[in-house]
C-alpha cells in the first residue's frame, strides 16, 4: 500500500511541474484541475488505509469544492480576458 501512495505522489508531481514551467494561465488551470482531483483521491486512499472516516468525508467534500472553485475561477478568468 505504501508503494501505491508513492506512485500517486509521483503522478502528482507531474502537474505541479507543469504548473511551474508553463506561463499560459489555461495550462496552469488544467494542472490545477488535475492536482485537485489527485489530492482528494489520495486523501480517500489514506482514509481507507487508516480506517479513519472523518478524513474520508473531508476528501469527498474537497473533491466537489475543488471542482466548484475551479469552475468559478475559469469563468472569472474568462471575463478578465474579455474586458
Amino acid at each position, binding site marked *: 500500500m*505504501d508503494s501505491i*501512495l*508513492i506512485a500517486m*505522489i509521483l503522478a*502528482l*508531481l507531474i502537474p*505541479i511541474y507543469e*504548473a*511551474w514551467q508553463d*506561463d499560459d*494561465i489555461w495550462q*496552469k*488551470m488544467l*494542472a*490545477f484541475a488535475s*492536482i*485537485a482531483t489527485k*489530492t*482528494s483521491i*489520495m*486523501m480517500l486512499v*489514506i*482514509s481507507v488505509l487508516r480506517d*479513519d472516516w*472523518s*478524513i474520508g*468525508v*473531508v*476528501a469527498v*467534500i*474537497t473533491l466537489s*469544492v*475543488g471542482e*466548484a*472553485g*475551479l469552475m*468559478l*475561477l475559469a469563468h*472569472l*478568468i474568462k*471575463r*478578465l480576458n474579455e*474586458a
Partner: protein
Amino acid sequence: MIDNYVYVIVALLPLSALMLVTQTNPYNALVIRAILGAVAALVYSVLGGADVALTEALVGTMLAVTLYVIAVRSSLVMRLGILAQKPDLTEDYITEFIASLRKVIKKHHLRLELVEYPDRDSLKQALLNREIHGICDRSGTSNIDNNPVYQTTIRVHRLFEILQKEFTYPDLKISYITPPNSEDKH
C-alpha cells in the same frame, strides 16, 4: 512509526509555496495559490487534522482565490479619460493609439478602462478631482504629416514613469501633473 510517504507528502508543501512566491503575474500566482491550497489540505488530512483540511479547502482554495481575483481585477486598472467621440466622426487613429497603449500597460498586468467626458472642462475637472488617472486629448495637428498630436496628462507618478520609458507613439506628448489640495485620497 511515522510512515515514509508522510515525509514525501509534507515536502510537497514548501515546494508549492516556493513556486507561489516566484510568480510575477498576479493571476498566475492566484492559480498557484489554489494549487497550494489543495496540497495543504492533503498535508493536513495526512497529519490527522480533518477539520483544518476542510477549512483550508473551503476558504483557501475557493473563497480566498475567488475574492482575490475580483479584487486584483478591479484594482490593477488604469482609468483614462477621453473626450466623447461623435458617432459620425470615426477616428481610427484613436483606436490605434488606445491599442498600443493597452499593449504597453499589459506588460505591467494593468487593464485600461476608458471614461468618456462630454467636453474639455469636465475632462480637466475629473483629473483634478482624482476620478481618473490620466486624460488624453488631441491638442492640434503636427506640422509635418498632418497627424493629430495627443496631449496625455498623467497624475500617478509611477504610471508616468512607465509610459515615458516604454510608450513610443509618434506625435505624443506626456506630462505629469500633481493635483492641488491633497486630501488624502487616491
